[in-house]
């Protein structure tokens, strides 16, 4: 019998009625939503506020909308099911985040009482659990989409050859439709990540001194992907998993290798683009430090909202197939534990995750090596999650670096405006950081602070 792999089951999870400021802030899908929510998180901004005094306490608020409409926002505390009648497309919207922020700081502003009439219709919908499905949806997806994708790969192949044939120096003169037509065609063939790669390539010519290097490297890796996709039927499950991730298809799960463990939740990053309501939650194995990314819908849909940054959960994950698997599916959430009180330590060598590089706190100098090992296993691997404890945070020539004891330094992104926060944490007792290394830049996602794991996007940047 196959393990059901769609739909998450919640087992004996204690009601999570206590919400900290950091947790509430981390539920905001973007800084703009957080800014608006902060403005709304004042009792006087609402027409009425309350909390139902029943077995499943629910926060609710009414706010004046435009054209004399009234917006009603509600959050059920124990599982963070949310609903708002506003027209915002973000999930959760600013009204819901504001309600949570208010509850975190001024619970007295939400007095207990009966549920308002608007909630009676919403509650039954919250209790509906997505149906479990059998089989592997990723494999079925591939069966349906592969012929169309392979036909598109032939077009991409010719397109790359034309680009080489004309000489890369001509790429600066290529009209926009040259790039967008190919990207749109890839979108039509349900290869969103390949389309995104082509759109990224379109921006490269002329942008930096080494743009020919960057463009040729991207073209070469695309060509390797075309070749690998033509071999899809003969590929191992791990290679197929890598291809699914590289193309942007639903992942293939290792249904026979569920991993139950305690996981620290490090970050919950909004996914850019059309899936803004989805978040990538990064979990680290409490003992080995192995990191996995779980994609959840924020606000409504499943129990992903319970994966709050800073908490520790007892959960069963289903890793994805792949040479260097980073993704996993949340299969069972058994319990939500108290947050960790100490940052993670470097794991013992035997606890290393089968040679997979993303295990435990590592020295700065080891980061490229870990990324290299991941690339050796999966040539289309783009970013390696790393837990770091750098010796220094340095501002040099207008850029921030994380420096190790031997002087080796990881460059942070150009527009990084949390450098002073990292330096302050370093000076006030040491810095432990979680981020992604793409071979050129380290993008920090979360840091260990007095409040536990804290996402950097929730801290106000300082130039």
């Amino acid at each position, binding site marked *: 019998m196959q393990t059901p792999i769609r739909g998450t089951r919640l087992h004996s999870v204690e009601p999570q009625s206590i919400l900290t400021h950091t947790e509430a802030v981390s539920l905001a899908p973007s800084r703009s939503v957080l800014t608006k929510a902060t403005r709304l998180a004042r009792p006087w901004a609402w027409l009425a506020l309350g909390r139902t005094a029943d077995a499943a306490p629910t926060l609710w608020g009414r706010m004046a909308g435009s054209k004399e409409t009234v917006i009603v926002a509600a959050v059920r505390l124990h599982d963070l099911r949310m609903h708002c009648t506003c027209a915002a497309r973000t999930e959760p919207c600013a009204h819901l985040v504001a309600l949570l922020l208010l509850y975190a700081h001024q619970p007295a502003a939400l007095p207990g009482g009966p549920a308002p009439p608007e909630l009676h219709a919403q509650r039954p919908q919250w209790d509906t659990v997505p149906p479990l499905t059998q089989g592997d949806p990723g494999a079925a997806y591939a069966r349906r989409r592969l012929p169309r994708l392979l036909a598109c790969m032939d077009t991409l192949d010719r397109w790359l050859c034309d680009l080489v044939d004309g000489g890369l120096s001509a790429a600066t003169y290529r009209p926009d439709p040259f790039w967008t037509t190919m990207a749109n065609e890839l979108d039509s063939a349900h290869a969103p990540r390949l389309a995104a790669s082509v759109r990224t390539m379109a921006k490269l010519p002329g942008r930096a001194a080494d743009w020919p290097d960057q463009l040729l490297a991207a073209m070469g890796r695309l060509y390797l992907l075309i070749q690998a996709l033509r071999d899809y039927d003969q590929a191992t499950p791990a290679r197929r998993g890598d291809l699914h991730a590289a193309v942007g298809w639903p992942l293939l799960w290792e249904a026979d290798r569920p991993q139950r463990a305690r996981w620290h939740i490090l970050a919950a990053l909004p996914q850019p683009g059309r899936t803004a309501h989805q978040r990538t939650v990064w979990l680290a194995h409490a003992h080995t430090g192995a990191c996995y990314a779980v994609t959840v819908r924020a606000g409504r849909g499943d129990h992903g909202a319970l994966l709050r940054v800073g908490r520790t959960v007892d959960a069963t994950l289903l890793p994805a197939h792949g040479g260097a698997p980073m993704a996993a599916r949340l299969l069972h959430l058994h319990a939500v534990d108290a947050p960790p009180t100490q940052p993670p330590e470097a794991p013992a060598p035997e606890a290393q995750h089968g040679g997979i590089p993303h295990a435990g706190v590592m020295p700065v100098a080891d980061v490229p090596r870990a990324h290299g090992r991941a690339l050796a296993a999966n040539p289309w691997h783009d970013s390696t999650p790393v837990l770091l404890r750098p010796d220094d945070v340095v501002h040099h020539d207008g850029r921030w670096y994380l420096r190790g004891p031997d002087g080796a330094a990881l460059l942070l992104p150009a527009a990084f405006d949390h450098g002073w926060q990292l330096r302050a944490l370093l000076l006030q007792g040491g810095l432990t950081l979680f981020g992604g290394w793409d071979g050129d830049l380290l993008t920090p996602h979360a840091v260990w602070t007095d409040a536990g794991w804290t996402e950097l996007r929730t801290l106000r940047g*300082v130039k």
Partner: protein
Amino acid sequence: MNVWQHLVDAVVRGADPVAGWTDGADPNLAALLQQIAAPGPGDRPEDAPEHRPEHSLLAAAGVLAVYRAAGRTLPRLTAGAPVESAAAPACDPAVAALLEHVLEHAHDPLLPEVLARLQAHGVIVPARLAPQLLARFANAATLRTAVSAVVGPAGRQLAAENPAWRALSDAADGWDGLAALWQTADMSGRRHLVAQVRGRDPDLGRALLEVHWRQLAAQGREPLIQALETGLSMADEPFLETVLDDRAQTVRRKAAELLARLPGSRLALRMADAAPAYLAWSPAGDAASDAAGDGTSDVASDTGTAAVPAAFIAVRPPESLPASLQRDGALAYTRGDRLRWQGAQLSYIIGGVPLRHWEETWQATPDAIVAAALAGRWPRTITTGLAQAATAQHNHAWAAAILPACNFALHVLRAVPVLTSAQLDALLDAHVPADEPLTGDALLVKLVRRRPQPWSDALAARWIHAVGLTLDATAPGAPLDRLVTTALRDFALRAPSACHAAAVARWLPSLHADQRTRAAVREALALLDLRAQLDALLPA
């Protein structure tokens, strides 16, 4: 040129790589590239729709791109000064959350109180909040000392590393550091620096100003002399006296205003010497003494003081100002309404005279002197000057005498902050009806809006009661006067936080006014609630 550069060079030109381009590569890599360049029969060329020469270049580029990415090395930075972590005592999470809330929700009026409490309790804020505090208050001179204390040693080291925050670092503690900061600061930064140092060490702040005074342009001297307001004392008098000889009139005037706050200053003595030429005490029944004046008045109609048997103050308005008074900041007007500028000059002179001078010279109490001023022909001019003097010299008795005698008129309301809480409560008991709804003109509103000090329990209770009455009397959907809603914020920031429950119980059941009023009332209650949380976490 290495293998990758050969390949890039060829593809940029749209040509094949030069012969032997793989020479010098790692042997395994070179073999792989050779294999790609000349695919054998088993190397799957038949899988491609058509095999083109470009395929070999693309495959080689893919292999080399992965090879290069996997073998990338990190740049080396030379080691700087060793990082000394300064482990700070853990800040209570509830305190940190409260500070974060106040910072994020821009409750700026609360921040000085929060910072003062943190400093008083020796709390060091979490590192994640230190940069935000430093960035936000780098230019807030009055809060710099508190911020510098609450960010702890790590925060001060951080401040030393960022030029924009350096004034909050330990460098601002010593003379050399201050001199360096002075050289790099703009005019606004220098004013903040002087005010910051004055808050901690007034003599050091004045010395900093004195050393650089002669190098400053006139437009920079005025704001800098204003910075001496912080920590003003008789020790500043010699320097301020020299500033009275400054070429710029605005600078002289500002220095004179500061000197007028020091009853023992030479300027105050000169003013006291000059005043008898313009003012004279006429005892009760001495109507003839009015001849000492010139018969003019600062009131529109003659108040008929000649018929009043009480004592009054006779006035001889200045016709032309002596040079010594102009040096002391009095303005020599030459155009416009003569009576008006004579009144302004007289008020200025009276404002600079030590108040005890009048009591000693005329052997009268403040109440009697104010009554005599009101009985004369220049009541408004004299009481304006006396109110100025009471404010500058922080004289409670005179403030309590002037305000009710002048019926709390606008020109004397500047003296309200000088009143003690007991005096204010007594005045309110005597002059404010207990059961009258509030309007913008209500005396209670006028007084509380000019009161920056913490409110007494009695004042808070009176305000809660008055606002409650006003809300009761407000029709549903009708607004409250804008001045009343503004004063609600003053209440929230200055009333004892313990009265939060009383305000909630009294106001919320009566809250049927328009949305703006409801929002103002809720905002006031929320601010008071935050202050109650602060009191619970960090008692005053």
